[in-house]
């Protein structure tokens, strides 16, 4: 799993949390941090905003247009949006795929 992607997602999650009035220290966020559910750091709208922000950052930093919420993501038996780590792994696969197609 790319450390850069994890950092990018941690930053985005922290920004989302701050934007929605809750404070989470970056040090408390890592690959194991659950995004959704009872222990999750985001509500459903927060996840939507996170996905949008990440897509834009990936475009800006990697020059790649990827859709994180595509059919594959939504049909996977285990959602890639479970934790920061699973999302980073999923984003990495999408980036690799987009680079191969380019």
């Amino acid at each position, binding site marked *: 799993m790319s450390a850069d992607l994890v950092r990018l997602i941690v930053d985005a999650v922290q920004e989302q949390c701050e934007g929605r009035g809750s404070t989470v220290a970056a040090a408390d966020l890592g690959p194991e941090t659950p995004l959704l559910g009872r222990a999750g750091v985001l509500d459903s*709208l927060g996840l939507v*905003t996170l996905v*949008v922000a990440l897509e834009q950052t990936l475009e800006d930093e990697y020059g790649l*247009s990827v859709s994180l919420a595509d059919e594959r993501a939504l049909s996977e038996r285990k959602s890639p949006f479970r934790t920061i780590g699973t999302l980073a792994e999923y984003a990495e696969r999408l980036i690799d795929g987009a680079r191969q197609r380019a």
Partner: protein
Amino acid sequence: MPDVVTLVTGTRKGIGRALAEHYVRAGHRVVGCSRTDVDWTLEGYAHYRADVADERAVKELFTEIRRKYGRLDHLINNAGIASMNHSLLTPLSTVHKVLDTNVVGTFLVSREAAKLMATNGFGRIVNLTTVALALRLEGEAIYVASKAAVLGLTQVLARELAGLGITVNAIGPVPVDTDLIGSVPKDKIERIVRQQAIPRMGTAEDIANVIDFYLRKESGFITGQHLVLGGL
């Protein structure tokens, strides 16, 4: 204060062009798109070639808007095509074309616009429907069905996007003298107009007036609404 950025789809001619000109006059930075180039230019207006039903083209359009302006305040989903024909004489290819532009196009552009608007926590989306929807106008089954879908999208998107500071509303114009109704017989247009409380053709100014209201900052509590012109 940064410039207000307004995207109008389907600006090559007709109502779309008139709306682009209206918002340039109002001081907005206006971005427009259509499937082909436009034969007019205007300071403060930037045109892009994009078919609203083509996901890749729509994404590229929004990449350009984000790079050039970094924001989007307003979206007016004007691009639309009509098919005036009895349902028994309507080929499947026409059905797909109308649904692709009117429904898929409105969805794709709204989705990408909302992503950009969400970053500022503010946005206004206005969709165009039609008086034919209120009149259940015969001879326009697919067009009316597509605009019914646009109204459904308006009402659901209004709920989904409310938490992001984005309102979504619709306006149903009465016949306006544009190419869209060029193939409709004159007597049919007259019959439509006679059913209105105010029996006259609409103008681009009538439409802009309603959209102005939806776009106002003060209209932040108005969403999921559908205003039909002419008193229908």
